[in-house]
């Protein structure tokens, strides 16, 4: 979707380093005098380039009470500057056969264009101009706030699952701003205006807070020279996002139960607080990645799939996921949707049993090997798309990983042992580190004559 928020999606971790022997993407880096970091990924298959500028600032860096301002600002960056006024940016990109968009996450905000390679410097010119030059009227700001509200309607409020996952996410994080919705709480979006956006912009949009990623049919030295011409003159700000408030020890399991008549398929979802690749001890992120694959990665062969979908036939679907590329402690999640006639309590009990058993035994050698094969092959398949390559490098670097960590990823995964995976499960899949959510329809209204005292005590439902 246009100018989108990266939703809380279930994404496989892909850090992009090829296994020895496979063709590796040619990656070159540089840093300009003003602190702008550059990454060039060569892909000479087609005469096109992907140009991305990533700011190391996102939803988790918003001032209290201003949730959504990072994403709102992302929208406003399309409004124009003195040099390229209203609509000029969009028009110039389109007239040069370019496609463009932008995205916001908790840790970063990114802007990109895909163009014929001979238009690359023009894209740098435009992107550098709006790093410091946007002009905003109150009217623009008010209008765009309505657009963001419609985006929130589409993504969150029109669908029970959107509101449910927003609540579950808030329940997991006791203190860290990752708990707030990226798009913003409705009431706080309503209160955003020109000044909130500009203050965030002036504080964080600067070359020393940004990473330039260029992928395509390019020469790294030429890209660096272009970047120096276009981005080089912008002074560093010296202001960086502050450390975010971190999580206190989690000592109590949390539960979120939501009922909505529009739920078509009930499901349970549990989020555990887990270290990210950046915050974990060396190898822990790789072990958690393998854990997600073995526990709930590939349909019916995973532990959850085998038990819930094949043996007990209690689930329509079951999976596990890990959002490893995050600056701070992150989410390891499990999900299960019961078949008709099975309750959420029943399916949660099966999930709990699978996890408890896994913590005792860990993965088999066969499971371990298969998971590694799939994770490592993903790095090879990713090379087919220059945009995915650019995305993976941009996201990892903007989340605080180093180039060495990115390029050593395959070795990290290879080195994971069965005991590493078991230990990661034991350490992090603990009830007190979790928030468990149930989403379902309200129970059918009970006829008055059948109502017992117990029912009455539960209070009105539906």
């Amino acid at each position, binding site marked *: 979707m246009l100018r989108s928020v990266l939703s809380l999606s279930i994404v496989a971790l892909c850090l992009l380093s090829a296994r020895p022997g496979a063709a590796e993407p040619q990656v070159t880096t540089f840093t300009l005098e003003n602190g702008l970091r550059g990454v060039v990924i060569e892909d000479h*298959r087609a005469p096109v380039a992907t140009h991305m500028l990533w700011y190391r600032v996102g939803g988790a860096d918003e001032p209290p009470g201003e949730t959504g301002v990072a994403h709102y600002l992302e929208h406003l960056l399309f409004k124009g500057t003195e040099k390229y006024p209203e609509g000029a940016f969009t028009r110039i990109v389109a*007239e040069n*056969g370019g496609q463009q968009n932008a995205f916001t996450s908790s840790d970063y905000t990114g802007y990109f264009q895909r163009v014929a390679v001979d238009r690359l410097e023009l894209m740098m010119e435009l992107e550098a101009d709006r790093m410091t030059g946007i002009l905003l009227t109150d009217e623009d700001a008010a209008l765009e706030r309505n*657009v*963001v509200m*419609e985006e929130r309607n589409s993504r969150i*409020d029109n669908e029970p699952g959107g509101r449910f996952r927003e609540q579950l996410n808030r329940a997991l994080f006791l203190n860290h701003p990752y708990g707030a919705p990226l798009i913003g709480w409705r009431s706080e979006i309503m209160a955003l205006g020109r000044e909130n956006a500009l203050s965030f912009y002036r504080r964080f949009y600067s070359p020393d807070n940004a990473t330039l990623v260029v992928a395509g049919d390019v020469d790294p030295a030429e890209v660096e020279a272009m970047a120096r011409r276009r981005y080089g003159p912008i002074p560093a700000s010296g202001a960086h996002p502050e450390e975010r408030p971190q999580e206190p020890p989690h000592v109590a399991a949390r539960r979120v139960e939501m009922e909505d008549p529009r739920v078509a398929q009930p499901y349970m979802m549990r989020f555990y607080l887990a270290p990210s690749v950046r915050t974990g001890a060396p190898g822990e992120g790789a072990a958690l990645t393998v854990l997600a694959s073995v526990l709930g990665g590939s349909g019916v062969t995973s532990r959850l799939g085998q038990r819930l979908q094949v043996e007990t036939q209690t689930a*329509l679907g079951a999976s596990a996921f890990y959002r490893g590329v995050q600056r701070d402690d992150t989410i390891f999640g499990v999900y299960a949707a019961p078949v008709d006639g099975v309750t959420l309590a029943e399916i949660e009990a099966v999930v709990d049993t699978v996890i408890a058993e896994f913590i005792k035994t860990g993965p088999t050698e066969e499971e371990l090997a*298969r998971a590694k094969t799939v994770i490592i092959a993903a790095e090879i398949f990713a090379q*087919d798309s220059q945009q995915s390559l650019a995305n993976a490098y941009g996201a990892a670097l903007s989340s605080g990983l180093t180039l060495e960590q990115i390029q050593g990823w395959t070795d990290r995964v290879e080195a994971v042992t069965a005991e590493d995976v078991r230990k990661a499960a034991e350490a992090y899949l603990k009830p007190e580190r979790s928030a468990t959510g149930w989403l379902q329809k309200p129970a059918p209204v009970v006829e008055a004559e059948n109502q017992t005292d117990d029912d009455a005590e539960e209070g009105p439902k539906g």
Partner: protein
Amino acid sequence: MSGQMRKVSTAFAALTLLVLISVATQARAVSAEIIQAVSPDGVAFWLVQEPSIPIVSVEIGFRGGASVEPEGREGVVNLLSGMLDEGAGDLDAAAFSRRRDELAARYGFSSGRDAFNVSAAMLSRNLDESVELLRLALTEPRFDDTPLARVKAQVVAGLRRREIDPGDVAGDLWSSNAFPGTAYGRNPDGTIESVSALSADDLRAIMPKALNPASAYVGIVGDIDVDAAGALVDRLMGGLPSSEPETFDPLEVKAPASLEVVRMEVPQSVALFGHEGILRSDPDFIPAYVMNYTLGGGGFTSRLFDNVREKEGLAYSVGAYLSPRDRAGLYIGQVASSNDRIARAIELIRAEWTRMAEEGVTPEELEAAKKYLTGAYALRFDSNAKIAGALVGVQMEDLGVNYIRDRNSLVEAVTIEDIKRVAKRLLKPEALHIVVVGDPEGLEAAN
């Protein structure tokens, strides 16, 4: 049950591989050559060699899709797409999945109103084994009871979700109003009732129709030479029984000139609007495509985007597009706005529809459209998987192997008079059929 599919394609004697045409495409689009070839067994395929990454992508399109379904078996082709990787040959569902993961192969099966598609991405280092597993899925799927029950339940769950999703409800109602009583009037995934009743025998019965090599189109891109590609095609297709391809009659678009409201308690209404469009084979298709870039197709730059989103902030997404299906063409669009603003959004869309019909585009707009469309065409060819998809798409639309080379000249040749003519021919603001799902204010069903 395996063993029911027999190798039939002996009509084509094993020829030596014949390379018919080799076209160097325009540098701005695909820099590689498209090799148009025929396998030893006589199956035509298109190949682009790309040795720089150790992957082979294969795309197969079978014409037909949900259109081959007999009455009462709606959704069987979609169910087939969900069952091919749930066990084949000696491998049950779990064993198949484990084997696929060991090979790190990726297989995708999907079906729509007009086609069934197979997409595979395989590693060069174990290509033979990966092709063999895909062959097994295509020719000897098992359809065991346990996975069949599970996949049916998943499809049914998806159909239930459609019933509460405003966009899906709007789409389904729009289609059934436009094509009453025909294959295009139904959701290609079937209905809860029809899918619940489907059996393994139904899947077996539909296979020769849904996966008929005589209506298949093949594109291969990657680290493979033409001989190996020919052998690959024969291995995949050799076990599929071939028969005379089914033909499908054109369908009339009967969407009424009306606005229909479906009440649903959601904060935002979704509106689907449109009327008859144009077939891909129509000589006016390219002018119509260029015209629609300005009206509703051009992302951030279309008139609909500019008026509905940029000027009034009424929506996050709004757009319109030509939908040229095999049996009918549609011109449709969608917008989502808060219940109190959807009426205004629809009013603006109608006004733009009218303005384009009456005035066409300005010379500046035409120039901008051409610059974007010709410049961005290369972006459709920047990955092996995209190229493989394009190779099949061009074959299925019967555009000819030179199309990728010539396409930008076709766009360049469009004149302002062409646009005026097709705008007048296609755009019928008074004929728009609009379905609104939500709790809209100030909109009542009207004929």
